[in-house]
């Protein structure tokens, strides 16, 4: 009997060890975990600064290092008062700038007059903003590894190209940084007035 008991114990231990080694449940980064955040911008009314104001037909695209728009849109022709922007980054503690083109009334660029030519009486209005920040890498967990958070630059956190850069018709009037650090996606960090 005792010999069988030893044999059975042996089998139980081997099976248990195989089962346990197979399941490593906290090796998958859960979606609920806060990892590298987006920049959240909300749009407010310049005439009534306490009220949100939607942007009509907003289309957003990122600009590469040569200021050329990427082929993929971040947002395509949506009426919204809140946007999430992915920030480009490579190295920790290196001041980095990402540029975005925010095009209002994007559908107007498709308008044609009766001759089939582009209708010049209505046009979309692209504005370009620059976000300048310093990435900071923070350890999250075994499964997620590290995330990056971003510290917006004190003076140049957000800038908009104006007439000096060749844009005489801007729809973005002003902006305000309300949170210098982008570490989660719970609240907006920047407000744009228009």
């Amino acid at each position, binding site marked *: 009997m005792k010999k069988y008991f030893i044999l059975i*114990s042996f089998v139980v*231990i081997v099976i248990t060890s195989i089962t346990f080694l197979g399941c490593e449940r906290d090796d998958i980064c859960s979606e609920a975990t806060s990892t590298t955040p*987006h920049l959240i911008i909300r749009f407010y009314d310049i005439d009534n600064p306490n009220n949100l104001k939607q942007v009509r037909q907003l289309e957003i695209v990122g600009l590469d290092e040569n200021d050329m728009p990427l082929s993929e849109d971040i947002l395509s022709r949506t009426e919204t008062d809140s946007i999430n922007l992915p920030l480009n*980054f490579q190295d920790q503690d290196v001041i980095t700038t990402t540029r975005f083109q925010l095009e209002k009334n994007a559908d107007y660029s498709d308008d044609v007059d009766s001759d089939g030519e582009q209708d010049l009486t209505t046009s979309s209005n692209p504005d370009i903003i620059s976000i300048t920040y310093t990435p900071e890498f923070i*350890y999250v967990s075994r499964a997620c590894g590290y995330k990056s958070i971003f510290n917006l630059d004190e003076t140049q956190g957000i800038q908009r190209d104006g007439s000096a850069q060749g844009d005489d018709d801007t729809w973005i009037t002003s902006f305000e940084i309300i949170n210098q650090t982008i570490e989660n996606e719970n609240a907006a960090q920047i407000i744009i007035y228009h």
Partner: protein
Amino acid sequence: MLFSIASNAQIGDTEKQADTLVYKQKYGLRLGGDIGKIARSVIDKEYTGFEIIGDYRLSKKLYIAGELGTEERRIATDFLDVTAKGSYFKAGIDYNTYTNWLDMQNMIYTGFRVGVSTFSQTQNQFTIYNTDQYWNNQSINTDAIEYNGLSAIWAELVIGLKAELFTNLYAGLNIQIKAMVSQDQPVDFENLYVPGFNRTYDSGRFGLGFGYSLSYLVPIFKKDKKVVLEKETN
């Protein structure tokens, strides 16, 4: 039946006087190694480990036991690549719940250990976890960072068995349930693997380990032991 197989070698020492049985009881220091760790070192190229085990009989039921080992383990995921390396020492007692026949030293035991480990962790590489790949620009950081002089203390509950395969040669199996008492964590990072403790879990301080051992009993003591019928006296 079991008696006749296991103590074949000593059968000559056993003699019968009326209803009393006298036999030589051997015990002393049992020394060995963890063959599971050696096998894994050969199979798994991310792991190297070696452990010496020993136990010493204090009384029929109580043994002093300990393990001394060294481990190196690399944990690499898509986002993190870390190597932990160090040595450990565990000491405690085993309590034998198995009633041996005559001269055997088999064990089915529960035990308790306190373990200490000193180790280092090297972060070989990490990739920032970013769900939005709009910029198609993975931030991969390949500068190795070594965190030295880390240490950990933990407690273990052990359940296992040791059985004599051949004369004085024992094979053993055990499960260790571990609870971290305290550990030095690197600043802005954590211990993913602690030599001797095994991998850590996000969910808490508990860990798990398995041992497959082979050990040899050095018979330091031999004493005559009388057994009256089947009643055990000690």
